């Protein structure tokens, strides 16, 4: 082991030993990387080490033995990554050709990238470039980190796996309602006890009133009146207690499920865009509405029943044993059998309900998909296909429900059969005991009354098995959302941005969607108040860059600094309050125009709203609407044209008076006349703010201080319009192409 550099300890244990033999004294480890594929793209474990002297590799053969090679880091030897879909390769090349190649999956892409960067920075520092140690603190918590890491390991750690069963975790939601739950439980206990009184009274009625009359003609009717009054009173008491119990517990369970819904929705709102990109809307809606509703039903109806069933069963058995232990034992003999059956069927029910929940979610997804997209469906005359698609998922719902029914229909009647046999056993044994004179007729009557209650309760408790599984499947689906952590995490030790100046700095920004790297190290500084136009072909990474600046996503490596602070150090909401954004497709929420304009600042006064609308050139068309600023827009509301919607969204951005303004193709979906109006509106908006605008129509960016041409995830050119035209580069080509489009291709060029 090389004592001079502790970094060697970072290597995984099995390799540490072997490596220590290979390295020379004083050799330091700069970076390491473990490719996980071999040349045939089969999984294997390799190791590539970059030391201060050379590049080393350990290649494993079929027998698991390691073979070491190394290459000196001579001038002109470089590492580069080549991507092919989800598998990629790291190549070591020099002027004469490829020296080595390691293949890896997307999981290892960051490590590979780091190796490449490390070699480059090592080389720069060798050449005497004053390589300052890059910012080496975790942007989230401020801990010291490796310069190339995004953030420290603690902050990058994934979500902890929940260990408790989903239903038990519901308990944490009920803690705040503890007192009412205890009250409900006490009421349940009392109501159950009150329900047990009437059968007990049947013993003296039979033995002291009916039997003396039947056998000896003794009139005990005065006694009978008392017993009957007792029965009536017990019934009233049971009714009152039941009423109170149901009300209290139903209230509590509604409350708990409302809390759960609120918490799930709030959590959902805080998740990053990446989460929503991968989830279907309908499924999320179904989880929040359907599954919480099911849980509420479970808590309010089933759980109460369950508690009172268990109480009833326990109390009944106590009473039974106190009257006659032997008879009680016989009566309870089918009970273990039933418990065993429940245990067997449980797993199947849970799986079934989970599947049913998923089927329901996918059916909702079809709806959530096609209803907003109905214009496309109709335009392509695909109604019948959509109907089929819905039918297919509807059938899935049916089949998953049917599978459950199959299990249940076999199980339910079996339980009924067993309980009937239970009371048969009591009758048989009881008659025999009476013949032998061991018990009275009254005791047998009471027993039969108790046992029928007992088994009714057992039956209803069995039915619970299904409800429990259904609820626990729902709880799992909800906790799946609640356990999700945002990919845009809140910093542990936040720096509060307050009102920013708006100086944006990109430092070696890289970003990957899955395995595909779309931004390959961008460096750019935007001064406060400057307007930057981003141009370039579709898919070049312009929108991605904007998403990173807005912190909808976080960089894969590198950093984005605003006013000199890493954006990951700001609390997300406080940071975004400094950003105004106008998108290509303005989204208006259901509500009045005034509410939509004031979306980012709900407490804005009406004069401010009007002023923003004026500046956005929306005021006059709003006045023309029948309800003015009170007109309803958004889904189900007034229909507005694209340009009108866009101007409302500009007013919305204006009202929050942002320091940083993002315009993502803000004018590309409207005609030129409207664009002129919007341009005028934008001029008011852009003034004095750091602006980053994407536009395909280059004419839109006339006012930009600098144009940044992005191509294939790299910055190709930066400069003013005429400078770039003079440079005859990518921008000049783009400009030329648009000019030809605008003027038609008359007379071949100019």
């Amino acid at each position, binding site marked *: 082991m090389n004592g001079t550099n502790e970094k060697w300890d970072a290597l995984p244990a099995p390799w540490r030993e072997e490596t220590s033999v290979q390295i020379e004294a004083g050799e330091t480890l700069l970076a390491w990387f473990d490719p996980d594929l071999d040349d045939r793209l089969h999984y294997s474990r390799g190791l590539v080490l970059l030391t201060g002297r050379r590049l080393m590799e350990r290649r494993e053969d079929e027998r698991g033995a390691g073979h070491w090679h190394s290459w000196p880091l001579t001038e002109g030897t470089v590492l580069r990554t080549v991507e092919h879909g989800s598998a990629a390769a790291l190549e070591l090349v020099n002027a004469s050709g490829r020296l080595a190649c390691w293949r890896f999956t997307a999981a290892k892409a960051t490590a590979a990238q780091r190796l490449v960067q490390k070699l480059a920075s090592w080389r720069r520092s060798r050449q005497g470039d004053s390589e300052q140690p890059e910012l080496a603190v975790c942007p989230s918590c401020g801990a010291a980190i490796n310069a190339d890491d995004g953030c420290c390991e603690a902050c990058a750690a994934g979500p902890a796996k929940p260990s408790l069963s989903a239903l038990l975790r519901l308990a944490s939601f009920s803690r705040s309602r503890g007192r009412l739950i205890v009250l409900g439980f006490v009421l349940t206990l009392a109501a159950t006890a009150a329900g047990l009184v009437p059968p007990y009274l049947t013993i003296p009625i039979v033995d002291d009133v009916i039997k003396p009359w039947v056998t000896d003609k003794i009139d005990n009717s005065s006694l009978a009146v008392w017993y009957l009054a007792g029965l009536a009173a017990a019934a009233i008491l049971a009714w009152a207690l039941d009423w109170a119990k149901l009300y209290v517990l139903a209230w509590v369970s509604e409350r708990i499920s409302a809390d759960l819904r609120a918490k799930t929705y709030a959590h959902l709102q805080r998740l990053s865009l990446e989460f929503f990109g991968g989830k279907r809307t309908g499924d999320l809606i179904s989880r929040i509405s359907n599954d919480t509703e099911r849980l509420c039903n479970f808590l309010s109806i089933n759980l109460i029943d369950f508690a009172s069933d268990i109480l009833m069963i326990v109390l009944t058995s106590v009473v039974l044993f106190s009257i006659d232990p032997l008879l009680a034992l016989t009566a309870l003999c089918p009970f273990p059998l039933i418990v065993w059956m429940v245990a067997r069927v449980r797993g199947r029910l849970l799986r079934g309900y989970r599947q049913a929940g998923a089927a329901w979610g996918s059916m909702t997804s079809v709806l959530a998909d096609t209803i907003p997209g109905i214009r496309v469906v109709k335009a392509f005359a695909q109604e019948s296909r959509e109907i089929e698609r819905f039918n297919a998922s509807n059938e899935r719902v049916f089949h998953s429900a049917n599978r459950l029914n199959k299990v249940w229909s076999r199980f339910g009647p079996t339980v009924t059969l067993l309980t009937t046999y239970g009371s048969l056993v009591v009758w048989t044994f009881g008659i025999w005991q009476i013949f032998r004179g061991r018990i009275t007729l009254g005791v047998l009557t009471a027993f039969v009354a108790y046992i029928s209650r007992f088994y009714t309760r057992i039956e209803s408790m069995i039915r619970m098995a299904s409800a429990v599984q259904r609820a626990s499947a729902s709880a799992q689906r909800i906790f799946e959302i609640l356990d999700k952590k945002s990919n845009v995490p809140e910093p542990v030790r936040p720096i509060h941005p307050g009102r920013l100046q708006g100086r944006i700095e990109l430092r070696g920004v890289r970003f990957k969607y899955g395995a595909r790297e779309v931004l390959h190290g961008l460096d750019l500084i935007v001064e406060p108040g400057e307007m930057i136009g981003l141009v370039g072909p579709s898919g070049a990474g312009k929108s991605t860059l904007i998403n990173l600046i807005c912190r909808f996503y976080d960089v894969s490596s590198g950093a984005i600094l605003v006013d000199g602070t890493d954006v990951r150090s700001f609390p997300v909401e406080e940071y975004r309050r400094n950003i105004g954004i106008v998108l290509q497709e303005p989204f208006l929420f259901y509500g*009045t125009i*005034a509410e939509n304009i004031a979306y980012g600042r709900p407490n804005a006064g*009406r*004069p401010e709203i*009007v002023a923003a609308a*004026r*500046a956005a*050139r929306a*005021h*006059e*068309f*709003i*006045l*023309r609407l*029948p*309800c*003015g*600023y*009170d007109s*309803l827009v958004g889904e*189900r509301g007034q229909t507005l044209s694209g340009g009108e919607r866009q101007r409302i969204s500009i007013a919305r951005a204006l009202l929050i008076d942002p320091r940083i303004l993002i315009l993502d193709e803000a004018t590309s979906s409207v005609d030129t006349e409207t664009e002129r109006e919007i341009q*005028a509106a934008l001029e008011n908006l852009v003034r004095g703010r750091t602006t980053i605008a994407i536009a395909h129509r280059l004419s839109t960016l006339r006012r930009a201080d600098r144009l940044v041409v992005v191509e294939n995830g790299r910055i190709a050119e930066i400069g003013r319009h005429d400078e770039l035209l003079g440079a005859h580069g990518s921008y000049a080509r783009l400009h030329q192409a648009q000019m030809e489009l605008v003027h038609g291709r008359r007379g071949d060029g100019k």
Partner: protein
Amino acid sequence: MENNGAANHKPGVPATGPHSFGLRHDAWGRLVLIDADGRQYIGVEVVRAFPLSDPRHGIAICDSQGKEIMWLPDLDALPPPLAQQIEEELAKREFVPIVRRIVKVSSPVEPSEWEVETDRGRVSFLLNSEDDVHELDQNRALITDAHGIRYLISDIEQLDANSRRLLERYL
């Protein structure tokens, strides 16, 4: 920017001078605005910016093209005769019957025929969908019928029990 005839004030920022204008009707019954400098605008219209949420603030006077000529932030800040004149104009322009009583709703599913008593008399209209009944703030509700005519309920609590029962399911 468009230059609009007599209007040579700075576009986008209309005059807000509180007393420096007058309104009259010309021989054809058109409304004429005379501004502080004596310029006349013929055929203007008076509109409220917030007819429902704040009817007495934010009144615009627009020309026949819908171009804003004058902005009056507060109706109550005007001299009473002028304010009254503007209110009369607004009353002429705005047709929003106030519902006093809901007599009958023909069916529980839409489209349904509603029979209501309003401040302008008894009327029946067709409601296309339940989404056309909107609950506003301060216990108010707005109903839009199949023709786009709006009916206002100024206080749900003030309706009689039967009307409230009929309305309940839409809110």
